[in-house]
C-alpha cells in the first residue's frame, strides 16, 4: 500500500482525501498557501508544509514546490484532488519521473481524454456514440459549411483546444456560419493559442448525464451508475442527483457499457467520469467529454452505491485490483447534493467570501456534509467560492427532496451570503420536483426563483 500521500489541493476535497487516507492507515502531508495556514485539513494532517503565498500559481499550481515538499517529507504518492493540477498531464508525468505515484491516470491517458477532437476519434473507434460532426478539424469556411450541411443545423463551431465555454459559437444556418467561424477561430487563438476548429451537431435542451467509472491496473473496468447535473448556471453545477430519474434501466445499461468502453479506449486508471448529452427524445445519447479526476459531486454516487470512491483511488494507485465487480454495484435509493457557495445570487452571483461568525451544519439519518469550514474560520477570496456540500440519501427521490429541504432549513452560516436560499427555492419548484430540469432550467427560472425568496424575506420582516 501507499505509505504517505501528499495532498496537492485544499478545501473540502483535501479533507475528503485526508479522511480516506487516515482510514487506510496512510499518513498524510498537507500543503498550504499562506492564506490557508489555519485550514482544517492542515491541522489534521500527519505533517503540513507551507509551499507558497496565497496566489494559486505560486502555491497549489507550483509543480516544483509540490514535488519538492513531497520528496522532502518522504511521500510515495500525490493526490491531486479536482481542479488545480488534477488534469495536468505534464504534472502527472513529472510525478512519475520523480518516483512518486500520481493518484490518477497517466499523463498519456490525460492527454488522450483531454483533447476534445482526439477523444472523439477514439470514442468513435470504440463504438461510443459521439455527437455527429466533422471528422477532425474544419480548416476553412467551405469545409465548415460542407460539414454543417451533412450534419444538419443547428451546429456548434468549437475550438479543439477549447474548454470552459470559450472558442464556441452556435450557428443556426449557413448565412451566419462564415462570420461565426471567423469569430470562434479568433477567440480560440486568443484564449488557447490554438485556433484549430471542429464542428458538432447542437443537441437542443439536452440532459447532462455523467457516469462514474473505476478502472484498475489489472484490466478491470466498472461503472457505478449515473448522475444528473442539469441544474447548473454557466457550466457551474449547483445541484446534482443520482441516479438520473430520466434513464430507463435499459438506457442506463447501454450508457453504462458505453462509459466502460470509453474508459478502456483511453486505457484509463483510477476514478473517472464520462459525460454524455442525452437528447430531448430521451433515447439518443452522445459522448461529450471524459473527466480524468474525482469530481466534486462524487458523493452522490457513493451514497447510492455504498462504494468509497477516494478509497478505491488509493487502492488502485497502490496496485490493488478492484474489490467490487459490476455485479456488486446496485443503485439503492436516491441521493441529492447541494453545493453551498459564498456568493450572492441577488447580485449576479458575485463571490463574497469572509469570516464565518456562526456555523451549524444539519445532520441526522441519511445526511452527509463535506466541508472544510469550522466556526470562526475564514473563507479566503483567492480560490473558488464553494464553502460546503450538503448531501442526502433516501429510499425515494421525493423523500430525498424533502430531506434536503429540511437540511437547508437547518443549515446556518453567518458571516457572508450563500446560495442556500436559492437552492431551497429550487427544491420547491414543480419542474425540479417533477424531475424535468434540463441544463436551461436555472437560467430560465432564475428571476422567478429570486423573486419568490425576496417575497418570503419581505413577509418574514413584516411578521
Amino acid at each position, binding site marked *: 500500500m501507499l505509505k504517505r500521500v501528499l495532498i496537492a489541493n485544499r478545501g473540502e476535497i483535501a479533507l475528503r482525501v485526508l479522511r480516506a487516507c487516515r482510514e487506510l492507515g496512510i499518513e498524510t502531508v498537507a500543503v498550504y498557501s499562506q492564506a490557508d495556514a489555519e485550514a482544517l485539513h492542515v491541522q489534521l494532517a500527519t505533517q503540513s508544509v507551507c509551499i507558497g503565498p496565497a496566489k494559486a500559481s505560486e502555491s497549489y499550481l507550483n509543480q516544483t514546490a509540490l514535488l519538492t515538499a513531497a520528496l522532502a517529507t518522504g511521500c510515495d504518492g500525490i493526490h491531486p484532488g479536482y481542479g488545480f493540477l488534477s488534469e495536468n498531464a505534464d504534472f502527472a508525468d513529472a510525478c512519475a519521473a520523480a518516483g512518486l505515484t500520481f493518484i490518477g491516470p497517466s499523463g498519456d491517458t490525460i492527454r488522450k481524454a483531454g483533447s476534445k477532437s482526439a477523444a472523439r476519434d477514439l470514442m468513435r473507434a470504440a463504438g461510443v456514440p459521439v455527437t455527429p460532426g466533422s471528422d477532425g478539424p474544419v480548416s476553412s469556411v467551405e469545409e465548415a459549411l460542407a460539414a454543417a450541411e451533412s450534419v444538419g443545423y443547428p451546429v456548434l463551431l468549437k475550438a479543439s483546444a477549447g474548454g470552459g465555454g470559450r472558442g464556441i459559437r452556435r450557428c443556426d444556418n449557413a448565412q451566419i456560419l462564415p462570420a461565426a467561424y471567423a469569430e470562434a477561430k479568433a477567440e480560440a487563438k486568443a484564449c488557447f493559442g490554438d485556433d484549430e476548429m471542429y464542428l458538432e451537431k447542437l443537441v437542443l435542451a439536452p440532459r447532462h448525464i455523467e457516469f462514474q467509472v473505476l478502472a484498475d491496473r489489472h484490466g478491470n473496468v466498472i461503472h457505478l451508475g449515473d448522475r444528473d447535473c442539469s441544474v447548473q448556471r454557466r457550466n457551474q453545477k449547483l445541484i446534482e442527483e443520482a441516479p438520473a430519474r430520466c434513464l430507463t434501466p435499459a438506457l442506463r445499461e447501454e450508457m453504462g457499457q458505453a462509459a466502460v468502453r470509453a474508459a478502456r479506449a483511453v486505457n484509463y486508471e483510477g476514478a473517472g467520469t464520462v459525460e454524455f448529452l442525452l437528447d430531448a427524445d430521451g433515447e439518443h445519447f452522445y459522448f461529450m467529454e471524459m473527466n480524468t479526476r474525482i469530481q466534486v459531486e462524487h458523493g452522490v454516487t457513493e451514497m447510492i452505491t455504498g462504494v468509497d470512491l477516494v478509497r478505491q483511488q488509493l487502492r488502485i494507485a497502490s496496485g490493488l485490483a478492484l474489490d467490487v465487480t459490476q455485479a456488486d454495484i446496485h443503485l439503492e435509493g436516491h441521493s441529492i447534493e447541494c453545493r453551498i457557495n459564498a456568493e450572492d445570487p441577488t447580485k449576479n452571483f458575485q463571490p463574497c467570501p469572509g469570516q464565518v461568525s456562526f456555523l451549524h451544519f444539519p445532520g441526522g439519518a441519511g445526511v452527509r456534509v463535506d466541508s472544510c469550514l469550522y466556526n470562526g474560520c475564514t473563507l479566503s477570496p483567492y480560490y473558488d467560492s464553494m464553502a460546503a456540500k450538503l448531501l442526502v440519501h433516501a429510499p*425515494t*427521490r421525493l423523500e430525498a427532496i424533502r430531506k434536503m429541504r429540511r437540511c437547508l432549513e437547518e443549515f446556518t452560516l453567518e458571516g457572508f451570503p450563500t446560495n442556500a436560499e436559492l437552492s431551497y427555492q429550487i427544491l*420547491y419548484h*414543480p419542474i425540479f*420536483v*417533477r*424531475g424535468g430540469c434540463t441544463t436551461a432550467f436555472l437560467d430560465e427560472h432564475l428571476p422567478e426563483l429570486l423573486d419568490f425568496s425576496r417575497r418570503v424575506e419581505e413577509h418574514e420582516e413584516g411578521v
Partner: protein
Amino acid sequence: MEFEKVRDIIVETLGCDAEQVTPTASLADDLGADSLASVELVMALEEAAGVTIDDADVANLKTVGDIMDYLAAHKA
C-alpha cells in the same frame, strides 16, 4: 395496486388521516393537496407503482378513485 397501499402513500405524502381517504375524496378539497402537493403525490405513486404518469393525465386525477382507476389501467 390495492387500495390500502395507495391510501398509505396518500396519507404519508399529503399528511392527512387514513379515514379521510375514501374513493370519492377530492385531493384538493377534502385532502388539502395544493398544486405542489399533487405533483409530489404523483411522484410518490410513480415510484411505488413503477409507472410513469403523463403530465396530461395528472390534471385528470381529481379524486382517490381516479388514482385507483388510472393505476388499474396502467400496470407497471
